[in-house]
């Protein structure tokens, strides 16, 4: 092992990764120091440390962070806290349905492999992962409109409640790996199938469930393009950030203010990452298992 660690390949990789790390950390650090500068300080001194640290930038961003949204025929403005609420409802609901549905579908197919539908569902998941669908947005919007679900929170939750994708395979593998003894003992004691699933089997995969939920939470928190298409009347914080970055006609269009906006959006995700980094970086690799 020691020989490995001092090989030329490893030294070279160490150097490349060090450069990569600097290229990643330096812009972040620059954004952080810029976010506490005054505009004139920034214009005078783009790179250096702030003459005076201005934490009020964050309060100003929160106060003037506004995005217009069409609600019926009326245009309303969503402020920071309204967007925060929209984000929690959108991200929380979508993460829950996008985790729960693959989980229970995987449970049914893993528990009853003898059913023909189980192998059909497994096949559908594998095939759809390989089929590229390009540009189905118009049809999806049209479908949501026909169902009366377009531009509604419930609509986006249902839209994301699909069992397709690699997390179905993750849950399927997890349920397959569980010993049947627990569920069989409960069944002998007269527990119903529903009780076995909710009280015994699902708690046994809670780690995988929580990890997938976290991954989805990060994914939906960061995504602004889908809310822009399917939920235009309820802008999320990520969408708000996109909006202010492309709009100069407001109080917070200066570079320090925009950087402060970025830092505010980053905080919840950095907190989640700090607390759950092992879960996020450890168990996500389950997706690497070939289906």
């Amino acid at each position: 092992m020691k020989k490995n660690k001092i090989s030329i390949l490893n030294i070279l990789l160490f150097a490349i990764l060090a450069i990569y790390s600097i290229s990643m950390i330096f812009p972040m650090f620059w954004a952080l120091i810029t976010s506490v500068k005054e505009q004139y300080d920034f214009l005078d001194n783009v790179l250096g440390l702030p003459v005076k640290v201005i934490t009020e930038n964050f309060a100003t961003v929160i106060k003037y962070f506004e995005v217009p949204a069409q609600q019926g025929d009326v245009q309303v403005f969503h402020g920071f806290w309204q967007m925060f609420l929209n984000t929690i409802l959108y991200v929380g609901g979508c993460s829950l349905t996008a985790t729960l549905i693959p989980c229970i579908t995987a449970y049914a197919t893993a528990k009853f492999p003898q059913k023909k539908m189980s192998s059909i569902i497994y096949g559908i998941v594998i095939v759809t992962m390989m089929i590229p669908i390009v540009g189905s947005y118009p049809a999806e919007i049209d479908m949501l409109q026909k169902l009366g679900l377009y531009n509604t929170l419930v609509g986006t939750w249902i839209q994301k409640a699909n069992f397709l994708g690699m997390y179905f395979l993750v849950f399927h593998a997890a349920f397959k790996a569980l010993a049947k003894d627990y569920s069989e003992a409960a069944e002998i004691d007269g527990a119903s199938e529903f009780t076995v699933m909710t009280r015994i089997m699902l708690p046994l995969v809670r780690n995988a469930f929580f990890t997938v939920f976290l991954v989805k939470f990060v994914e939906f928190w960061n995504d602004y393009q889908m809310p822009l298409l399917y939920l235009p009347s309820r802008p999320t914080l990520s969408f708000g950030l996109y909006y202010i970055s492309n709009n100069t006609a407001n109080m917070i269009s200066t570079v320090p203010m925009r950087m402060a906006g970025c830092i505010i959006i980053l905080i919840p995700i950095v907190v989640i990452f700090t607390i759950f980094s092992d879960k996020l970086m450890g168990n996500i690799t389950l997706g690497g298992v070939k289906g």
Partner: protein
Amino acid sequence: MKPNKKRKKMGRGKTIFYWSILAFPLLQFIIFYVGVNLNSFALAFQKFDYSGNGYTFVGFENLFQNFLDVFKEFQEAKYLQTAVWNSVLVFILGLVIGLSLGLLFSYYIYKKCALSKFYKTILFLPYIISSITLVIIYKYFVEQAVPEVVLKLFNIEMDGLLSNQNTEFGAILFFTIWTGFGVQTLIYSSSMSGISNEIVEAAKMDGITPLKEFLFIDIPIIAPTISVFVVSSVATLFVNQMNLFNFYGAEAPYGIYTIGYYIYRGVSAAGTTLSDYPYYAAFGLVMTMITIPITLIVRKVMNKLDPNEG
């Protein structure tokens, strides 16, 4: 008879349970996957009727009108041809640079070399930070900070990398590859950690170098994982927006369009009307038809190259 009856009864209960928990997922799949794709297909043969009838069939005499519009646009609009080329370029460079560096980084992490845990976290950062946040920071960094650094270090005045037409595409391409290592590095290093120690130790006793171990032991063993990654990357060939919407909203310069951006922009831009949807549905269908055989060919090639197959 009794036990049989009991089994039959239990079987029915299980069957009811089975179908009741699958009912919603299957219905969702039928509506939002099968239905949407059928609708996408149907939309490609429809037009929007402003007299109140909504989408109506284009008629047999104009059956392929939307598709003809797509081909006409391809012929007349040079930027669409460039968009195809840009999409292919992003894919190839992303694959060549992203895959090779991603594999090397994974090897470093798998071997638990110096600071590997720290590097793993840094590589994963772009995955947890939203792309719009990263883009905003990067945009102002290359526009404001980089020219300042160059001026201070080399006394050379230069434009921001995104304001200069010659460096704009390269700067965005670099950003796309630069932020794309996270998940694949985790997946590969995880696959590598499954490699048996005995194989590696035996090879070491035979005097294998780290580079040879990487090339001739690690890569072949994790070939199935690489294959899945490559095939799924091909599937996104014409979906990749190269972060253009993040950088420019709907106002990206024509010369740097990708097909993924063209479609998303077309559907989401403020000026889009319901009458534009059939055109974009036809456009998506054409691109899907092109991507499916490419994906299948790449899959076949990857299977042939995989030393674990057959």
